[in-house]
């Protein structure tokens, strides 16, 4: 199945998700408001997206963008789900109940970005030690050990 067929399939099954779907550089992207995130991903799960490849985040200053990559083995198609949460209150619903693989992925995002996944069964740091201060992948993270390469490359 290609992206256009996926759009038709998605729109037929879940008309309310249809306006959120876009195609960016050949990739299907579903951009949802953070409040509808869990509901939308649950619909995708029912649609046949059985693999959650990754969960990650990008620091865009005022907001964090959360990026989920889901894939369907049956339809042979992948899809991004993107949502934004404000920096001063980074909270989002967890999808562990839909895809258990989100367990470690969300812990990693919590560890490195400080985004709280509500409903996660075991939200702890995973890569860094428990007493680490700060979230290193945020753009404003400062650490004496972090050396910036000079601008001349």
């Amino acid at each position, binding site marked *: 199945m290609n992206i256009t067929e996926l759009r038709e399939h998605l729109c037929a099954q879940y008309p309310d998700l249809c306006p959120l779907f876009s195609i*960016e*550089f050949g*990739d299907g992207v579903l951009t949802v408001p953070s409040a509808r995130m869990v509901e939308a991903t649950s619909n995708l799960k029912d649609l046949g997206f*059985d*693999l*959650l*490849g*990754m969960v*990650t985040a*990008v*620091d865009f200053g005022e907001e964090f963008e959360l*990026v989920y*990559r889901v894939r369907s*083995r049956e339809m*042979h198609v*992948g899809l*991004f789900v993107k949502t934004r949460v404000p920096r001063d209150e980074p909270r989002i619903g967890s999808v562990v109940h839909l*895809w*258990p*693989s989100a*367990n*470690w*992925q969300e812990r*990693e995002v919590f560890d*490195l970005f400080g985004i709280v996944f509500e409903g996660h069964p075991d939200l702890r740091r*995973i*890569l*860094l*030690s428990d007493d680490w201060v700060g979230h*290193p*992948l945020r753009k404003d*993270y400062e650490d004496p050990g*972090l050396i*910036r*390469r000079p601008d001349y*490359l």
Partner: protein
Amino acid sequence: MLPPDTEPDAGAAASDAPPGAIGARESVVKGAATTVEGRGEHVVVNIGPSHPSTHGVCRVVVELDGEIVTSAEPVIGHLHRGIEKMAENRTYLQVVPLTDRMDYVGSMYANWAYCRAVERLAGIRVPERAEYIRVIVCELQRIASHMMSIGSTGADTGAFTAFMYAFNQRELVVDLFEALCGARLTYNYVRPGGVAFDLPDGWVDRCRAFLEQHPDAMLEIDRLLFGNVIARARLKGVGVLDPAVAVAWGATGPVARGSGVDWDLRRDDAYSVYPRLDFEVPLGERGDCYDRGRVRLWECVESCRIIGQALEQLAELEPGVIKAQDLPRLLAPRPGDAYDHIESARGSLGVYLVSDGSVRPYRMKVRSPAFSNLALLPMLAEGHTLSDLVVVLGSLDPVFGEVDR
């Protein structure tokens, strides 16, 4: 499908379940552990982070009831170097050597996955010859990586001979890589837009000579390790992974295929020149350590077929055209994002790149198959003995450079 089980060696006719003997898995499988619960005290044992059987720097906090594991929690991050953060501080080309240091048993894969994401982001077309060379080196890398895994399965189960046999084969591959790019472990060979060097003179013949003897060596290891009475007793029925659980937990690669999950990106999301190559995807049935090991073994045989065909098709292409034309010295891709994935020796390895239009990636995320596969350890190890925990961990084939990044 996998070929039928290797015949057990002499004297092992009843090896698979002699009651009371070393192979009596029933006494230690799930359920048996619950009968002793409440009788004794639980002991917490820390294994690692620096322990010969954890295949790297992994700490496993194990709770034991006698010798039975009641819970096992991997504590990862001991090799976390912040590669994703470092990448934000380097140009696109300077990131390639960092990717070498993620999966250091399969550096070519990380190189390739990263380069594919960059090429997608910057809209670079890779010459056909470079694509064939990439497929050849990556299939060789699969053999080298699986030899490491199968060899350490032997070492974990006390069959050190098999370890030496497997490493003998791995050594031949690493020699080929050394002739190709001068490095034996961190190659920095696949670059955005192509590969670093063309194949040197005589390399194709050396590669063919390797392919000629490799399948026979695999049959020998199949007999030596997977036909061995002790290895069979240690591997069969241990760490059984249900296919539905494998999919739900995002397991990919030989770990999922050992359980019969028919999923291989080389075929199911065919990239590069794989659609032109004919190969099979070996699948296990039982999902235990034995099947995961044998899936890796037969993947090596299939890799030989792939390389053979790729070498034939490569011979018809003009030598020297290994890099995209008009590549700028300093890549500054369009603002936006791109994700691409390949089938590495451990599963689907993906790289997600975000660009803000500058010469450095704004964000790089690596979707690591070893990370996802390792999350299964608590489930697989529970109810087995402590010595089986080591085997289960080995069968997941984690490389901690990639788990921790």
